[in-house]
């Protein structure tokens, strides 16, 4: 069947629906997933379709949402637990880090944790400091956990299916401002590999390494740069853990310069890791220091114009590229 453009929201819904039909042990639990239909409408209609056993509204209680999902996964179910936004995942930090990520190693493989925790990230919606950031990199610090950061509908569907079918815990991060973005998705079943980055645009002059919202900004920046004769190669990481930098190294050896773009804060972020690894792997090919574009080093404010000023933008990316090209 021909590919058809659908939104990221539709891609997530269809991945969940198809996996629930495929495997009886897959179920959804979380804040407002049932009667409400998901605060981002991803699970609308699911309660009628699958019933209360498999679409379970929870209290607003992130510690037990994540923690009980770990227990259910250890015992043989395949929970898809939803924590409405990643801001609330901080409340569940112990369950995600100490329970989900370490359970297998600590008991030397006696347990597996086939768990997906879905959550949304991102600022730019005038929600104030506690609800406005993209801190998913924090969770990528911990071995035992995978962190998915899809940026297109095609990736979202194939990656969510991979996450549900895998026997390891996955923090599946969706961007709250990108759910309406459309891209072509095959009607047939497909699953994308875990931990594979993807070249979203070919170019020979500079390598832009990014993901999710940064991907959108970077693609816009690349179009503008092309008008001036600068061809950027844009690499979408898609997963922060496992982190697949092989295509980045390969690209860098061609372009000899790189910019890392992300929405998270500027210290101890994805850019720091990628820049360090490029330096180690590609030192002899390096023509300029790796540039980093991230949010400003402040909590985000409410007022619209200054909030947007604190976030990355295509203009900031273009400026960073021109520093080194």
């Amino acid at each position, binding site marked *: 069947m021909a590919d058809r453009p659908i939104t990221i929201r539709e891609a997530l819904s269809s991945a969940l629906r198809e996996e629930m039909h495929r495997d009886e042990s897959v179920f959804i639990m979380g804040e407002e997933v049932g009667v409400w239909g998901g605060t981002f409408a991803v699970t609308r209609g699911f309660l009628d379709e699958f019933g209360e*056993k498999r679409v379970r509204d929870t209290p607003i209680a992130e*510690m*037990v949402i994540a*923690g009980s999902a770990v*227990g259910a996964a250890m015992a043989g179910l395949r929970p898809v637990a939803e924590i409405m936004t990643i801001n609330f995942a901080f409340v569940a930090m*112990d369950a995600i880090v100490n329970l989900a990520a370490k359970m297998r*190693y600590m008991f*030397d493989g006696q*347990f597996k944790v*086939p768990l997906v925790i879905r959550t949304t990230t991102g600022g730019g919606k005038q929600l104030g400091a506690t609800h406005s950031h993209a801190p998913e990199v924090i969770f990528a610090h911990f071995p035992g956990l995978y962190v998915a950061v899809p940026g297109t509908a095609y990736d979202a569907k194939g990656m969510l299916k991979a996450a549900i079918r895998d026997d390891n815990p996955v923090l599946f991060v969706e961007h709250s401002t990108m759910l309406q973005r459309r891209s072509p998705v095959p009607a047939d079943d497909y699953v994308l590999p875990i931990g594979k980055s993807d070249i979203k645009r070919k170019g020979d002059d500079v390598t832009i390494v990014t993901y999710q919202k940064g991907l959108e900004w970077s693609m816009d920046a690349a179009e503008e740069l092309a008008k001036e004769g600068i061809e950027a190669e844009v690499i979408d990481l898609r997963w922060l853990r496992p982190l697949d930098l092989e295509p980045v190294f390969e690209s860098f050896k061609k372009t000899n310069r790189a910019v890392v773009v992300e929405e998270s804060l500027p210290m101890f972020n994805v850019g720091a890791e990628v820049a360090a690894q490029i330096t180690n792997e590609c030192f002899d090919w390096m023509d300029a220091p790796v540039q980093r574009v991230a949010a400003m080093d402040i909590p985000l404010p409410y007022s619209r114009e200054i909030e947007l000023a604190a976030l990355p933008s295509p203009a900031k990316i273009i400026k960073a590229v021109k520093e080194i090209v």
Partner: protein
Amino acid sequence: MAKPNKNTLLDWYRQMVLIRRFEERCAEIYQQGLIGGFLHLYIGQEATGVGTVAALRENDHIITTYRDHGIALAKGLDPKAVMAEMMGKKTGVSGGKGGSMHLASRDHNFWGGHAIVGGHLPIAAGIALKARYNDEDEVTVCMMGDGATNIGYFHESLNLSAVWDLPVVWLVENNQYGMGTAVERASAADHMVLKARGYQNSRGEGIKEGPRLDGMDVMAVYEGISEAIDYASKNGPILVESLTYRLEGHSMGDPQRYRTKDEVEEYSAKGPIGRFRQYLTENYKNIESDLDKIDGDAVEAVNEAVAFAESSPDPTMDDLISNVYAD
């Protein structure tokens, strides 16, 4: 609930003595540096662990805190593999990667040993959810200390178990101190079972307020937990308290400034093993020789466990990096 016969009672005595001798030896070899990290002894609380495990039905589940050696041994894990874990050996129940606080055996439905206070409570809810989801008659017994009743996980897990009607026995082992802080200095409720009332509706439905058991009496614990499991299987969650006493410090090297020697001696005099032995000798003729043999066998089993652990290899560099992820 099956009435325990003489052989069953002897087996409980065997388990309690094995746990006591095992842990006394652990304390010794800890001082010699053969066990690293923390070591939290169960000495004084054996009746609660043995009585609780005895009450489990074949497919029931148990999960507990970092004070987990007693539960592991009562569940029938090989003392050799448990001692090897204490010493960080490859042959340990968790491959030497978990240590004293992280004993577990999936094959025994023993879900661990967990070292974040309260962190295992939501896991218990999740295991119970699996039973509910699959419509299986399996009860999860979640043991915790009195200190865990004050942490957020307690509230969220008990509330969810009531909302979702999960088959869980929440069992508070009230040993009267959360580390060095006495219960009444840390908890607004002095009786732990009172906390069930926060998870009941106006018709009294929700978490059942269960009994306060004499946690120094293995038979009382067995009866109380058997009834609680039966209740949870038929009706849903229940909160039970077992009143016990930790005769040793919170962990090794605890100066115990928070209690008097007299208090410890008072509890020591009514300790669970001596008391049970006395019951057995008063109620069964000529049982002393059986008990003496059990005492001797326990020492022998611990000697074997130590010898096995000492001669076992350390985990390898391959083990170091294995089982971070499932394949």
